[in-house]
Every structure is written in structure tokens, then in C-alpha cells.
């Protein structure tokens, strides 16, 4: 109905472009500001900056890895709620294999293979039986958590309340410890991000993913069926999950029933925080996961520092971080307001 729209002057177009760029940069700006505030607090308190930065990387890395892979799913306008459960499950199998073989390579390969298999099961089942992807992942969440829970319980070595499988052999612990470094983690993330960015922006597959997210019907009519590219997206997400699971194992040297329990939902937060629309499509970006994941973790750390002496602070931290999250998403979406309520 908004018939034809004629461009006013080049000037207006330029202004619009500048505005778009500002909005696009907002998530990055938010990350920079949050980082600056964090560093300021650390320095002002005479805390150890190096340790704190390492902490941030350690806390964020699994989330960011999983979220980076998950971008492929989100790009399609779909989402997977079982990512956390899948991380838990692949870490469980991974640690069993590692305990048996002591091979780091096998740990990573197993985690990736298992995670990709879970992803494939999700996507293939839903495409063969035409099931809504999301509900399939809800079912998968239960199944994976339960199976992993059973495996962990049966093989538990823990003395604590939560059953857990740990790497207890000191030689094996040393092997894991050797890669439990910030540099290794950053390297893994960088490699994976580069691969994802390459696939996403420089290959036919990536272009088609984005196109699919924008309009699946048109994509189908252009010979890009959701069933096929959905599977590819889930495979990419599986790789991210596998890497996250393996890195988690090197970090904690154990897997318990609570491992990665909040990753599934945090991925949503991270991706949206990073400036990507939940509906996917043309505005999807790989860096959203990285920017958003780190922003979210840093924000929580800042709030924890600021409120350290407040009673019930974890409640307040969560409230404030949720409010800031909504505020940033609100501002970032300002260009895309529509007359009716979004769904």
C-alpha cells in the first residue's frame, strides 16, 4: 500500500545511512564502554587487571563459542533451545573419551562429533517429519539433559551434591591444564569466528542462509530449501557447541549435571545484545555473538563488583542487567519500528 517511495535528496539518504551506521555500531560501542567501566573499577580498586581479564575470558568463552555457531540458526529466524543441553551432553561423552584415551584431540573431536550429531538429529527429524524446529528442540532439551544426567550419575566420581564425572588422573589433568590458557581459548574462538565469518559472508551457503532468514518462501522459490540449509545451520551450531563443550572440559576438568545449564538461554541474550534481530535475515552478523556475549558477561561482572556489599545482590544484579539489556535492545531496534506490534 505504501506505494512507491521516491527518494528525497541524496542528503536525506546520507543522513539515514549515518543513522544506520550509528545504530549498527551501538552494540560495539556498548561493549567498549562496558569494558572501559570495568577496567576503571578494577584499577580504581587496585585489583589485579590481568587476573580479572582472564576471568572474563574464562566466563564468556563457552557462551561465545556456542552463540557464534548458533548465529547460523538464528539467521534462519529459527532458534534452538537445546544448545545448553547439547553442550552438557557432548561434554559428558567427551570427558568419558578423554578419561579413556587421554587424547586432547579426541576430546575435541568427540565433543564436536557428538554435538553435530545432536544437531543433525534435531534438524533432520524436524525436516523429515515437518515439525516446528523450536518444539523439536524443546523435546531435545529434555532428552539430552536426561541422558547426560543418567550417564553422569552412573559414572559419578563426585563427593558433592551434584553427580559429576571428573578427570582425576594427574597426568591427564596436566594435559588439560596445558591448554587451559587464555591464549588457547582466544585462539580457538578466533579460528572458529574466522571460519564462521568466512562461511557466512564469503560462501554461497552463508549468503543463502541469510536470504532464507529474510523470506523462507522466496528462498524456496529460488531453490534454497529450508530443510537443507536448516540442516547446515544446525551443523555449524553443533560445531560451536562441540568447541564450547570441549573448552569447558579443559577449564573445569569435570562435567556435572549442572554444567552449561544456563547457556541455552544466555545465547539468546548474547546474540540480541550483540545487535542482531531475533528474526534473523539480512541483518545477521557473526560478530553479534562475540560482542553480545562479552558485553553480557562484563555487565554482570561490573554489577557484581558494584553491588558486592548489598544484601540479595544476585537478585539486583540480574534485575539491573535485564533492564540494561532491554534498554540497549530498544535503542538498537529504533530504526525498525513498525506500526503494529512485532511478533
Amino acid at each position, binding site marked *: 500500500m505504501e506505494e512507491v517511495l521516491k527518494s528525497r535528496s541524496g542528503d536525506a539518504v546520507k543522513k539515514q545511512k549515518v543513522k544506520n551506521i550509528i545504530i549498527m555500531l551501538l552494540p560495539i560501542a556498548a561493549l567498549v564502554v562496558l569494558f572501559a567501566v570495568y577496567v576503571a573499577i578494577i584499577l580504581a580498586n587496585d585489583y589485579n587487571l590481568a587476573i580479572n581479564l582472564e576471568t572474563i575470558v574464562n566466563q564468556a568463552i563457552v557462551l561465545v563459542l556456542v552463540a557464534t555457531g548458533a548465529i547460523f540458526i538464528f539467521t534462519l529466524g529459527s532458534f534452538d533451545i537445546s544448545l545448553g543441553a547439547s553442550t552438557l551432553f557432548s561434554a559428558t561423552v567427551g570427558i568419558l573419551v578423554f578419561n579413556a584415551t587421554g587424547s586432547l584431540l579426541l576430546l575435541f573431536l568427540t565433543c564436536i562429533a557428538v554435538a553435530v550429531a545432536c544437531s543433525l538429529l534435531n534438524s533432520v*527429524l524436524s525436516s523429515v*517429519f*515437518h*515439525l*516446528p524446529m523450536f*518444539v*523439536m528442540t*524443546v*523435546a*531435545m*532439551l*529434555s*532428552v539430552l*539433559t*536426561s*541422558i547426560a*544426567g*543418567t550417564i553422569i550419575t552412573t559414572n559419578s566420581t563426585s563427593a558433592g551434591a551434584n553427580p559429576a564425572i571428573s578427570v582425576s588422573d594427574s597426568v591427564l589433568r596436566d594435559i588439560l591444564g596445558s591448554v587451559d590458557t587464555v591464549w588457547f581459548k582466544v585462539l580457538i574462538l578466533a579460528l572458529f569466528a574466522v571460519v564462521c565469518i568466512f562461511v557466512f559472508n564469503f560462501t554461497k551457503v552463508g549468503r543463502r542462509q541469510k536470504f532464507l532468514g529474510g523470506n523462507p518462501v522466496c528462498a524456496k522459490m529460488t531453490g534454497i530449501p529450508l530443510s537443507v540449509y536448516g540442516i547446515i545451520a544446525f551443523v555449524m551450531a553443533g560445531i560451536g557447541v562441540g568447541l564450547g563443550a570441549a573448552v569447558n572440559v579443559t577449564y573445569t576438568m569435570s562435567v556435572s549435571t549442572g554444567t552449561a*545449564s*544456563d547457556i*541455552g*538461554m*544466555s545465547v*539468546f*541474550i548474547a546474540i*540480541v545484545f550483540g545487535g542482531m*534481530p*531475533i*528474526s534473523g535475515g539480512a541483518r545477521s552478523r557473526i560478530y553479534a555473538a562475540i560482542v553480545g556475549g562479552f558485553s553480557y558477561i562484563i555487565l554482570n561482572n561490573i554489577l557484581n563488583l558494584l553491588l558486592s556489599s548489598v*544484601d*540479595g545482590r*544476585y*537478585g*539486583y*544484579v*540480574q*534485575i539491573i*542487567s*535485564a*533492564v540494561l*539489556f*532491554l534498554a540497549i*535492545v*530498544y535503542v538498537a*531496534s529504533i530504526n525498525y*519500528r*513498525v*506500526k*503494529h*506490534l*512485532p*511478533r
Partner: protein
Amino acid sequence: MGNLINKHQLKNFGVRTAGTLAVPALFVVVIFIICAAQGVMVLTSSSLFADFVCYAAIVTLTTFALSINLGSGRFDFSLGSMATLSAVASAQLTYSMLGGGAGSGIVMLVFSVLIGAVAGAFSGGLYVILRIPPIITSLGVALIFEGITFVLTNGTYIMSEVQNDSMTLFRTQWYLPAVIILVALAAVYFLFDRTKFGYDYKALKEGQKVSINTGIREVPNAVWCYVICGALMGTVGFLQAARNTYISTNVLNFGSISVMFTAFLPMFIGGFIGRFSNDKVGYLLAGLSMSLLNSLFAQLSLIGIIDSSSRAIVEAVLLVLFLIFLNNEQTCRDLVTGRIFKKWAEAARERKAAKHSREDK
């Protein structure tokens, strides 16, 4: 959600009754077969029956709440957090007033419904003001409600506040949760199927743009939906508190999310039943079926042949199976009637014929 064309064509009363009762009947039959095979019985005492009704109320009301916004394409992750928050706040409020004395139960129920409604209004209000996709606002809202719950309790269990004779009645007298179910059913049926609000809701759900252009006001309609969801979840929170005799309040980091997942299976079953009668009745029948299943799980758990993880797997598999049925109904029907083999044979014959004709050329 229900397929209107089918509904229109299914005038036959017999078919409608059969369609309505098929799934619940299947549940009953299968459950009793399993009972017989394992030598257990369900619903053997009045208190167990009361527990059955109470759990059915929890599932049914959650399903109502889930279906309201999900049906309109609005994803709401905050359902569980609304239930916990309203239960905790109303428990504390009621206890501070009555100290667990007479009437505590009903007062807490009223408070819980009201607080739930306010929470829903907050959630819906935030959505219409921010105008960002509801799935995102609901993530934020869930975190906020969980945070508030934590601040109210510091994460500790709510126990003595909800352990009193008055609350006990809701768990031990089956008619109380039954009344709650009936009132809720009547309310959602009236609101969504009989009022202007309900008609507008349906119109917005099926054709958002056209409805708005015609002059239906979407914002109040959406906010009211959230308010109703909140009130329902407030009731669920209360019933859970009554049934469990305590409230676990340590729900930070999306600990409250899982509540909504339990409602997916009954929602799909209810939607299916709704094609033959009414979706709300469908949700109730599905809720009762799920509760009967729960009773069975309890008995099987006591004799040690099922535990919580195998239960979760069974429920997930049921969900997937039912979805496969829903999305491949024709194939399933063909499979049952054996027509599928005929079809395969036909297709094979055709392929052969086509091949021959090509070869002839």
C-alpha cells in the same frame, strides 16, 4: 489454532464426540493396561484423587496461559517466573497479615492472582511500550521477575508461610482445585470465545494488519492477554505452593523457564481436540490426561521402574510422536488403514509405466 474448515465440516455429533475423547481415552486405556501389567493402581485414595485434580489444574492453567500468547505468535519465556514471583509475594503478604491462620489459603490465592495479573500487566506493558519482539522482552522480564523473587527471599525456601491448614485443603480436598479449574475454564472460554475482546483477539491473531487497519486496538488487547496470562500463572504458582508445601525461590539465571515446557504437549493435544469441540476444553482434557500420566509415573517410580530422567525422556518422546502425528496426519491415517501400501504400489506402478513409455520412445 484449530482447523476451521474441518470444524465446519464435522457436523456429525458422533465424529465430534469421538474426536474429542479419542486422545484422553487412549491415555486412559494405555495407562490402565500398564497398571495391570505392572500390578499397580492409580487414584486409590481420596487424597490421591485430590492430588490428581490439583496437578491437572496446574497443567491445565499453564497450558491456557501458554496458548494465549503463543497462539498469537508471541513467545513468552516469563510464564514460570510470573508463577514463582506471585506465589512468593502473595505467600509473604498473606503470612504477614494472617500468620497462617484461618482463610490463609483463599486470601493467598486472591493475592497470587492479583500479583500475577500485575506482573502480566508489567510484562505486556513493557512489550507494547518498547515494541521489540515479545520473545526478547519476555527474556528480560523473566530475568527481572526472577531477580525480584530472589531479592524478596534471598533465595531461601518459602515453607512456614505456605504450610497451614487452610492451604492444605487445596491439596487434600479435590473439589477446591476442581472449582479453580472450572472457574478458569469458564473465564477463558467466556473471555476468548464469547466477548468482543475474544473476537478481537482472534481477528488480531489471524490477521494482524487488517485488524489494526480496520480499527481494532491491538495494544489494549495485547496487554489484556498478558494480564490474563499473569492471573493464570499466579493461580498456578499458588497451586504449586499448595501442592508442594514449599516454594523453591532460587530461580536465578532462567531457573524458572522449565515450567512452560511442561505445557507444550498438552497444548498440542488440546489444540487437536479443539478441532472437534473447543480448544479450551481440549486443554482441560489434555491436562487431565497429563495428570493421570503423572499418577502413573508416581506408582511406577515407587516400584522403581521409572525415575525422573526416564520420565523426562518418555514425555519428550510423546511430544515428538504427537507432533509427528499432527504434521503428518494423512500419512498416519493411511498407515493405520493400510492405504499407504496401496499408494506405494500405485506410485511404483506409475514409475514403471513412465519408464516404459520413455524407453518406448
